[in-house]
């Protein structure tokens, strides 16, 4: 670790000092250096393919018959469909969420839940008022309606209320 520079500065300094004063350790260190020199010499010898161009050709021939194993997600990402689909999903959720009414569910007038007394009639009244506000917009908005038609529809609705 010392030879390969894998020690921190403090440990390295401690070993340096010891090697300067210890004959047996410094001879062991000399042996290790000899090993290191032999390994470095071996590392210089870089075996290369006998015919690099031929190896590249073989690799390219092999991949011709193999298609990348794209996952559904990567395909969506590549075609940028994911972003479009997320936007459409959000719009649909927003549209349908507004159309859910609390009146579709049977709710008793008063009930106690975990010790909390719920004022159901007040909650229903608030929800109905909220629904009335957004109802005009979602009701007027249809896929084929122009902006002008939606505006006229909403105006007439507000006049009625």
């Amino acid at each position, binding site marked *: 670790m010392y030879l390969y520079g894998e020690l921190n500065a403090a440990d390295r300094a401690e070993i340096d000092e010891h090697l300067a004063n210890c004959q047996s350790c410094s001879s062991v260190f000399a042996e290790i250096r000899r090993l290191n020199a032999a*390994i470095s010499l071996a590392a210089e010898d870089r075996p290369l393919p006998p015919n690099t161009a031929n190896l590249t050709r073989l690799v390219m021939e092999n991949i011709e018959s193999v298609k990348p194993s794209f996952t559904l997600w990567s395909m969506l990402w590549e075609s940028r469909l994911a972003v479009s689909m997320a936007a459409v999903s959000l719009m649909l959720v927003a549209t349908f969420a507004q159309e859910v009414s609390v009146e579709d569910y049977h709710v008793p007038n008063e009930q106690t839940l975990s010790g909390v007394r719920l004022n159901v009639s007040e909650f229903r009244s608030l929800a109905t008022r909220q629904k009335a506000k957004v109802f005009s917009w979602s009701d007027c908005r249809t896929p084929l309606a122009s902006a002008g038609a939606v505006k006229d529809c909403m105006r007439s609705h507000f006049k009625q209320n």
Partner: protein
Amino acid sequence: MNPAEERECIQKAASGDHRAFRQLVELHSGLAYTIAFRMTRDVDESEDIVQEAFVRVWKNIHRYDAGFRFRTWIAKIVTNLSLDYLKSPRSKKWSGLELVENMAEPMNANTVIESSELKSAVFRLAEQLTPKQKAVFVLRDLEMMEPEEVCKALDMQDGNMKSNLFHARKKIKEGLEKWYQKEIIWNAGNVKS
């Protein structure tokens, strides 16, 4: 090719561009072959491993994690394929006796050791290592990869990597000591005769 160009090539290859992939093959096939050969010591097997490695890269290039250097990813795939080969029955196994017999004899009576003989001795001794020790030794000491890169390439914890490296270096050192002694005896015999 600088890192930005390499990244661009990877992106193009991920979208199916063969020309960009070819550039990556030309850039990294040398490294892939060197690692494969150092692990297997077999030319044909190394070429097969390189081909298989690049097919795997092509199949999975869209999964490439930019947190890895591309060369580390290639090294990981090649090393895994080489380890599979070493565990397979078709891999060549060297016994201790064969190793000593196959070590190059010094060709002159000088005490200066020929560098090619020394290299040959190191490569033969590397054959005695376990597959994991060999993989660590090849990537760290011969390919000179950073310790973090070696850990990533071999899916190893730092302590495990250092332990394998320590044992690999120890075996090579002990083998070289025997080889040096053998050479000294051989030279002494030559001088007497």
